[in-house]
């Protein structure tokens, strides 16, 4: 056995994964407990979506509906969107402002404050001595389930677990530094797009950690002869393997993609010319040398900077074979009208209709469909596995290091799920 390099992370490096992990409803159920309700932080939203006291947004942790609110003093609060009375959803809107700061369940009008405390239940003492709750009914015991929330530079996460480490420990220094880098100044929300993929959430999680597919599946750049291979690039993961960060640095030399076409199975010459190249124009707007970053934060979000597109992609596992992506696009608050328009034009590259991202939806569905009836068959994610899982790989594209990191982290959290489920 080889000695591991100094910067590799310890533990097995999974190079093959049973396709059952994409398809088994029992595993999907176990993920709710081990992953989403486990010691992890799920993305809830951006602070810029709820700037004012009383503002709220509906979000989700795994399958659990969650509401993120801004209280009267400006603090962020989170609670499970499930009335303590009958389990009804209290908040029925995607976003808004609770004018009087209260959230009232429509069913029996139980009212909660922004923190999720029960403020009142109608007829608590009955009417003229009839009905009502017992004299010792304590409102403090009938509030909404609280969610721990934490914000990093305005990116808000929540956890259902008391044992989750502090957010910044969970993310690790490298990941925190990039979140701060992208959210380096106040942002402005530009809008949303939603995309439903008929595939397991982990297929998308792998996809956003897979630098191997970039120039092979997404042929927009090579077709228009504008692809620059990412020579000046790197991939990083945190010490658990959960999170992935791809960075491409501003290149001083443009490299002709033709050199690579003999390595690929499909035609890759510049077959066409863009009529309007403004769509790919890049105007440096972060004061460093990073031209692109794709950061996947386990288990539920991708933070991206691609050209001048900035977005958080929330990855929601709706069912074992249904994954929703919610793209929240933003710019900086100090953008002028022309810069905003430029970002909107750049958005043609990403999102559900994105020139260099739409194929991911198709790839996820092809894998979901192709693994039907796979009965013990496994994937093969062994590219560039010399020396185990590395904290840092450069350049990008010839390895599946961060995919293996994801599986290592995933399996550590899922350890024992099958025993838990074992039937007598």
């Amino acid at each position, binding site marked *: 056995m080889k000695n591991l390099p100094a910067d590799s992370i310890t533990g097995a490096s999974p190079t093959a994964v049973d396709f059952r992990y994409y398809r088994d409803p029992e595993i999907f159920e176990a993920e709710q407990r081990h992953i989403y309700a486990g010691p992890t932080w799920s993305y809830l939203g951006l602070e810029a979506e709820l700037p004012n006291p009383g503002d709220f947004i509906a979000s989700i942790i795994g399958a659990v509906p969650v509401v993120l609110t801004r209280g009267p003093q400006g603090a962020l609060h989170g609670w499970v969107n499930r009335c303590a009375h009958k389990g009804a959803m209290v908040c029925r809107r995607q976003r808004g402002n609770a004018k009087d700061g209260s959230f009232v369940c429509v069913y029996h009008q139980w009212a909660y404050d922004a923190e999720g405390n029960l403020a009142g239940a109608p007829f608590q003492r009955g009417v003229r001595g009839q009905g009502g709750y017992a004299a010792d009914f304590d409102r403090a015991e009938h509030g909404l389930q609280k969610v721990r929330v934490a914000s990093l530079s305005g990116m808000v996460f929540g956890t259902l677990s008391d044992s989750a480490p502090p957010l910044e420990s969970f993310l690790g220094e490298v990941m925190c530094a990039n979140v701060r880098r992208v959210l380096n100044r106040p942002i402005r929300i530009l809008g949303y797009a939603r995309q439903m993929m008929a595939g397991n959430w982990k297929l998308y999680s792998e996809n956003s950690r897979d630098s191997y597919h970039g120039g092979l599946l997404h042929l927009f750049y090579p077709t228009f002869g504008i692809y620059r291979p990412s020579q000046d690039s790197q991939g990083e993961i945190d010490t658990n393997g959960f999170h992935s960060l791809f960075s491409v640095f501003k290149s001083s030399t443009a490299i002709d993609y033709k050199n690579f076409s003999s390595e690929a199975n499909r035609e890759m010459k510049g077959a066409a010319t863009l009529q309007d190249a403004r769509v790919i124009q890049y105007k440096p707007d972060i004061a460093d040398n990073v031209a692109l970053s794709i950061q996947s934060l386990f288990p539920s979000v991708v933070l991206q900077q691609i050209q001048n597109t900035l977005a958080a992609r929330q990855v929601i596992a709706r069912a074992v074979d249904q994954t929703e992506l919610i793209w929240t696009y933003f710019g900086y608050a100090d953008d002028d009208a022309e810069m905003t328009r430029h970002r909107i034009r750049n958005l043609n590259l990403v999102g559900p209709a994105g020139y260099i991202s739409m*194929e991911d939806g198709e790839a996820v569905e092809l894998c979901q469909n192709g693994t039907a009836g796979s009965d013990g068959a496994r994937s093969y994610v062994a590219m560039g596995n010399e020396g185990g899982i590395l904290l840092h790989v450069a350049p990008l594209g010839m390895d599946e290091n961060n995919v293996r990191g994801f599986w290592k982290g995933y399996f550590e959290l899922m350890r024992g799920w099958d025993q838990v489920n074992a039937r007598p």
Partner: protein
Amino acid sequence: MPDLDHIRRAVNVLNTEYAHCIDDDELERWPDFFTEDCEYQIIGRENVEAGLPAAIMFCDSRGMLIDRVVALRKANVYPEHVSRHLVGHCRITEVKGDLIRSEANYVVFQTRLDGETRIFNAGKYVDEIVSSGETPKFRRRSCIYDTHRIQTLLVTPI
């Protein structure tokens, strides 16, 4: 006083020709429905109602429309499909010289290789049409969609 019936007829014909062009997969002709300095976008109703500008497709020149078609033909990978547009009668909201503002509801059905036909996108066209030339052309066309959840991906224009 413009002849509204005449304008309605002309816009309905334009909308019909436009829909057939896409549904018959003659996308290379699609940019011809627009002026050179056109603006075409596909944007979620939730963004429009919140005053947010992000669209999933945004082209502010005819060149960008041509690029979309070339990318679809040569670069992008997507599930093979055909589209079927049903476009409602237009509603003329303003006529000012050569400029017509018009709206029309639409539904796009999509059929993939499995043979099932699904509602892919429902929404409303909000248009600015220039009628000065030989044939009327779109100066602006916004496809404002209700169907927030794009199934898999969107590649074919609406």
